[in-house]
């Protein structure tokens, strides 16, 4: 178990070196959050600023989100983030030679909702030294939590924890977890359409359409998102359940074959909706039909930008 501080030191060293060499003008990484159980994105432009970079069990946000259009940037990236960064390069959002990836092999990030369920008392402080546990402190108590018990869903089934295409690694490689078996998605097939619809309407019933999931997503870089289009207006501005469902369906489709299951959307959701449910349906289909996983090669084209003349589609008669 590498100590978090050792990883942070490596990140800072690399960041300073890259800035000094002129290889990067900005290092995008994490700094301490202003409240417990969080980190914040941080843009280090000088050697002094690099000292604020940290590594944490709460580095959940996908920083590849900040890449499109940037020049000379170094990115601190977990396995999933690094795959997103590869996706950005493949989709021509940033040239490969403008990007430097400081990969951090990651053993998963913490789901704050699970922490809150375990420890309902107000949390004043979090002490973390290693990447397998952390200590919660509050008024008159102090409890240790093993990270394994509070991992995010996507981290529990992450097969690509070590960023394979990173320019350097800030920690020793770690083995991947058992991949997602999509058991719940496959189980949908045995339900009736009405039951399925009830399930998904229930899933998104709390959705405020704040679009935090879209804003946190490194795939959502369109200059004008379809939800903001007004001529014609595809999505109403009220919280009609059908508009909300349409938003999630279309966002799922837009991310299909590109999503690296980084879980940023679920992390930032203020009402804890399992947003990735829609993506997972499509992820399963993409894997089954085209045996494709995004972000694993610099020159593999996303499945929806190409075709095979013998793509199987028996439902089209």
């Amino acid at each position, binding site marked *: 178990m590498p100590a978090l501080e050792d990883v942070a030191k490596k990140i800072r060293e690399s960041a300073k070196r890259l800035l000094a060499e002129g290889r990067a003008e900005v290092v995008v990484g994490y700094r301490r959050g202003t409240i417990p159980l969080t980190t914040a994105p941080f843009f280090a432009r000088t050697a002094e600023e690099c000292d604020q970079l940290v590594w944490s069990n709460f580095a959940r946000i996908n920083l590849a989100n900040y890449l499109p259009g940037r020049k000379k940037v170094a990115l601190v990236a977990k396995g999933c983030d690094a795959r997103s960064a590869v996706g950005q390069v493949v989709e021509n959002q940033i040239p490969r030679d403008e990007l430097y990836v400081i990969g951090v092999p990651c053993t998963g990030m913490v789901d704050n909702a699970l922490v809150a369920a375990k420890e309902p008392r107000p949390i004043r402080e979090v002490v973390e030294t290693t990447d397998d546990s952390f200590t919660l402190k509050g008024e008159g108590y102090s409890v240790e939590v093993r990270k394994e018990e509070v991992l995010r869903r996507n981290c529990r089934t992450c097969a690509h924890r070590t960023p394979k295409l990173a320019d350097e690694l800030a920690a020793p490689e770690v083995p991947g977890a058992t991949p997602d078996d999509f058991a719940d*998605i496959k189980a*949908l097939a045995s339900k009736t*359409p*009405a*039951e*399925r*619809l*009830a*399930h*998904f309407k229930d899933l998104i019933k709390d959705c405020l359409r704040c679009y935090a999931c879209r804003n946190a997503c490194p795939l959502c870089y369109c200059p004008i998102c*379809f939800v903001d289009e007004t001529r014609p207006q*595809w999505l*109403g501005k009220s919280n*009609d*359940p*059908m*508009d909300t*469902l*349409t938003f999630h*369906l*279309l966002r*799922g*489709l837009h991310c*299909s*074959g590109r999503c690296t299951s980084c879980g940023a959307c679920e992390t930032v959701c203020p009402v804890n909706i399992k947003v990735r449910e*829609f993506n997972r*349906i*499509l992820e399963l*289909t*993409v894997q089954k*039909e085209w045996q494709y996983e995004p972000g694993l090669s610099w020159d593999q084209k996303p*499945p*929806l930008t190409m*075709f*095979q*003349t013998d*793509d199987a*589609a028996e*439902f*089209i*008669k």
Partner: protein
Amino acid sequence: MSDFEPKIVAFFCNWCTYGAADLAGVSRLEYPPNFRVVRLPCTGRLNPKFIMEAFKRGADGVWVSGCHPGDCHYIAGNYHARRKFILLHQLLESIGVEPDRLRFSWISSAEANKFQAIARDVVEHVKACGPNLAFRKEELKLGLAEVA
């Protein structure tokens, strides 16, 4: 509701199915009049949001039809469309759209008979599904009980 006549939004490719519908017309082949046809330059033009919009506005069914694979006027439009449809079909079926409400087909401009047969089939299946109540917007549900 035995006298339910569904409204079906049909997205036809200009170069094939739209022609087939024309040919069916001039050949005096009878088919049900439940379609509102939207003419597309190619099925590749079909954005999934068109289909969602149709359902949201109360369409009881959607029918998308284009050229057979290999016959695209723009060389590869329908190949790209096919990949899109595979995902769209899977997604909509998974979240509870009845499979019979959404139909995809390949009909060339010479296949008037196939057009007639599928048109009848689509209407029959959508009729069996009943009116689209689950996927229309709330504001459109107002007053629906009175007319139904």
